[in-house]
């Protein structure tokens, strides 16, 4: 050893080294890949199922024998009706429906006017509006008046008073999906962090680590490493989900969610990092992996509460909670989506969450330091704040 030159020490942030190890340890862990790949497989499968089952429902086939009747069907498709014309001979109109080759048969007689023959009333496509439009046009021509003038002012637009243009459900779905993602990530990665801490404590390597680098660096490294892993996994899942979504009738949802996607990511990042510090602290309070359930219960409750409020809070409660750290992660993106909140509100919530993150790092480091050397029993919350290191 004497002949070996003393290697140069480079001042490198210790948390970076710790974060890198956390990431590598997970990437080289079989369980991680099994978990990730099976989740992806479930998502892809579920979209395949939705695509095959739901998908675009096939249009109702309407048997027609004249150009006018066909024009009615065309007019109906123009206004959003899911119908298609099937041209048949006049005398085959009835049998086509009876044989099930068409869902309905549309015909016109001088005596009865327009007739729509169907097997079941519930299968009847709505062609009334189209019939009226086509008939008014042809009557206008017969009367020598301009069809446009006759039809002018006959359209009705329904305006919802709460500004809902049909996206309310979409917002609920998106918020719900986000809450689930956040909760799943918080619980899986939270446990991962807590476990990583307690394993080091159990194997006693923590004494060497704590002697080599400040405990805060250890904590930050773990939080950063695991947050990055969680975030990239979530982004991967969301991307795959969005791609999947684009193959289903819910495609318009993507356009709706896209503008606030960045906020989702930001809120996830800050909310998750704050929770991660607390998870690390919970891990440090345990002595063995088996004790984790005991020390992580309070956090589990916080995550579940945030998740539930994200789903059920409405009105003023939701507004207030959208500024409270952790719950803001679940609620604020939804409020942004619905337009209830703007970027100023979002920034404010983000700022509060970031401040909370700072506090969580401080608390986490304190707990970490005070309990790391305690190796014979689980530390109580009361002990934690009454002890000196």
């Amino acid at each position, binding site marked *: 050893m004497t002949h070996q030159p003393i290697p140069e020490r480079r001042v490198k942030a210790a948390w970076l080294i710790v974060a890198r190890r956390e990431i590598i340890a997970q990437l080289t862990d079989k369980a991680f890949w099994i978990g990730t790949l099976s989740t992806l497989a479930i998502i892809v499968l579920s979209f395949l199922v939705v695509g095959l089952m739901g998908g675009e429902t096939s249009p109702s086939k309407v048997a027609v024998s004249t150009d006018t009747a066909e024009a009615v069907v065309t007019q109906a498709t123009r206004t959003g009706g899911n119908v298609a014309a099937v041209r048949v001979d006049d005398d085959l109109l009835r049998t086509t429906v009876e044989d099930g080759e068409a869902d309905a048969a549309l015909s016109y007689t001088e005596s009865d006017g327009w007739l729509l023959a169907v097997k079941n009333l519930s299968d009847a496509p709505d062609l009334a509006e189209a019939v009226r439009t086509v008939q008014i046009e042809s009557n206008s021509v017969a009367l020598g008046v301009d069809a446009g003038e006759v039809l002018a002012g006959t359209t009705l637009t329904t305006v919802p008073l709460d500004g809902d243009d049909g996206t309310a459900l979409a917002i609920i779905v998106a918020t719900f999906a986000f809450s689930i993602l956040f909760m799943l990530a918080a619980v899986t990665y939270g446990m991962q962090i807590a476990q990583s801490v307690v394993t080091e404590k159990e194997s*006693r390597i923590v004494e*060497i680590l704590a002697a080599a680098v400040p405990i805060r660096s250890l904590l930050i490294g773990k939080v950063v490493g695991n947050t990055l892993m969680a975030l990239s996994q979530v982004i991967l899942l969301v991307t795959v989900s969005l791609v999947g979504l684009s193959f289903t009738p819910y495609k318009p949802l993507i356009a709706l969610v896209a503008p606030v996607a960045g906020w989702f990511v930001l809120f996830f990042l800050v909310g998750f990092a704050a929770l991660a510090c607390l998870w690390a602290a919970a891990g440090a309070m345990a002595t063995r992996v088996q004790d984790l359930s005991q020390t992580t219960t309070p956090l589990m409750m916080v995550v579940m509460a945030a998740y539930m409020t994200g789903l059920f809070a409405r009105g003023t409660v939701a507004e207030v909670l959208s500024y409270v750290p952790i719950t803001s992660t679940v609620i604020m993106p939804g409020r942004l989506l619905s337009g209830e909140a703007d970027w100023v509100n979002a920034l404010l919530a983000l700022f509060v969450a970031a401040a909370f993150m700072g506090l969580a790092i401080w608390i986490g480091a304190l707990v970490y330091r005070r309990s790391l*050397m305690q190796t014979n029993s689980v530390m109580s919350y009361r002990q934690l704040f009454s002890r000196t290191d």
Partner: protein
Amino acid sequence: MRSRGLSDMLDVMLDIDSVTRRFGDLTALDNVSFSVPDGAFTGFVGGNGAGKTTTMRIIMGVLAASSGEVRWNGQPLTQCDRSEFGYMPEERGLYPKQPILPQLTYLGELHGLSSRDARRAATVLLTRFGLGDRLKDKLEKLSLGNQQRVQIAGALIASPKALILDEPFSGLDPDAVDEMFSLLAEFTKRGVPVLFSSHQLDLVERLCDQIVILRKGEVVAKGSVEQLRDSGETHHRIVARDDLGWLRDRTGVTVIDLDGPRAEVALADEAVAQAVLAEALGRGPVHDFGPIVRPLSDYYREVTR
């Protein structure tokens, strides 16, 4: 202690000054002061619960002192200094389920080495310990002795500027102890101070330049092995041809044990010693005359009683 330690003669790098540590009502360390001199082995001995591990943890900053401080070259020891120390805790700890090379590399990096240097240093050390062909083995697959070697390698990886080793030799066979000691000696030759605790007094006596003895949280003795051995009342052994009964009547001579021509005596001073020797020679041939070298363990029992 009145005796001057080696620390007064050598450059003192690591200085433990009046360190006290209380756990609730229990005083684990009471005003502990000693120095670990540059380039020397300092043995840290004491019974279970004497406070050796607590002292080492305080030096490494894993525990805080209730009062007192630890200095490095006269300045309070900082986290930055500590990151360049090599530490082997009493409770061994590495990642059992990780291959040994990556985890030593990780430790090296945490100590400030670049990842390439850390990897190289880990490979060199492990190869030297005869583990060169097991770099990819998980720690838990190694024998306990080999795990111990990896642990020591962990403390040495980043060319430490001081070594704090808690019971580094426990669990090693005599050959491994010698091998480890010669490796550590390379560090002391470079000027690195080494503080190590041990229960094995014979080992400490053989290896250490300086000894610190702790009893119930207090330093009861410190100094070089010779100083400690000689500090008590020194006895002399006399072996002559004829009966030594006359020794009982001489002033300044206390007979401890007398068996015909053999005697163990306590002599008041050097002048008495010379007088006794002269008289013995005058009475006939003297086969042996000289101080009795007591084993350190005698002294240890005396001070820790």
